[in-house]
């Protein structure tokens, strides 16, 4: 809610920073606390954070794609295509990371 208010008060560009607040990531980490404790909590948080790091890199691609696709294809089609690009990019980065580094 705070992010929505800030985004509405400071215009589209500063709003964009708060539009990218990592709310889902932080909520996912906090929700782990309900099921895990101690070392297991840290291990699961590391797993989630590794995946989230891949997802965030894909988010950068998604935001760049969205800003271009929305202008050319309209906000509805542009947004859906940008989200599809996010999913494909995240999967590709994850697979590459697993194949090359792990």
């Amino acid at each position, binding site marked *: 809610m705070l992010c929505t208010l800030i985004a509405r008060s400071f215009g589209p*560009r*500063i709003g964009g920073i708060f539009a990218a607040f*990592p709310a889902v990531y932080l909520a996912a980490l906090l929700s782990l606390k309900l099921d895990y404790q101690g070392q297991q909590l840290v291990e699961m*948080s590391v797993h989630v954070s590794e995946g989230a*790091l891949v997802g*965030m890199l894909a988010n*950068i691609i998604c*935001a760049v794609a969205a800003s271009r696709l*929305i202008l050319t294809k309209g906000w509805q089609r*542009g947004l859906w295509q940008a989200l599809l690009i996010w999913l494909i990019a995240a999967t590709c980065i994850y697979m590459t990371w697993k194949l090359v580094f792990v």
Partner: protein
Amino acid sequence: MADSSNLYLYDLEVGVCMKHSGFLLDLMLRFLLGGGAVAGCYLLLLILPWKSFAGIFAAFPAVLASAVIMSGWLEGREAASQLAKGATAGMLGCTVCVAVTLWGLLAGIEWVWAIVLSIPAWLISSLIFISLVKKER
């Protein structure tokens, strides 16, 4: 005259109602997309053998999607595109946020403090990235 002033008041009321319902819809969208992503991430974490793959969905751009939907719906494609462009700097900040949390967890910093540290890291890095993006233009 009375008719035109009534019409003006009606237009004003419709405008206020649209803004009000837009705000509520914005919050509802964020709640649904964000909550859905957290629930999806949690379910995948339980089902999938590769736990880190589930983490990808913890980075689902739910806030960006709802912000673009609302901006596109209320202000048009230019504003939505500008918002997405601004979000690029925010996404770079988010990457720093996750990297700081991951570093904190791997370095043995207490779980809560690793998360607490990541929020100022996100804000400061986002502000730096947005000023860099501004300078580039």
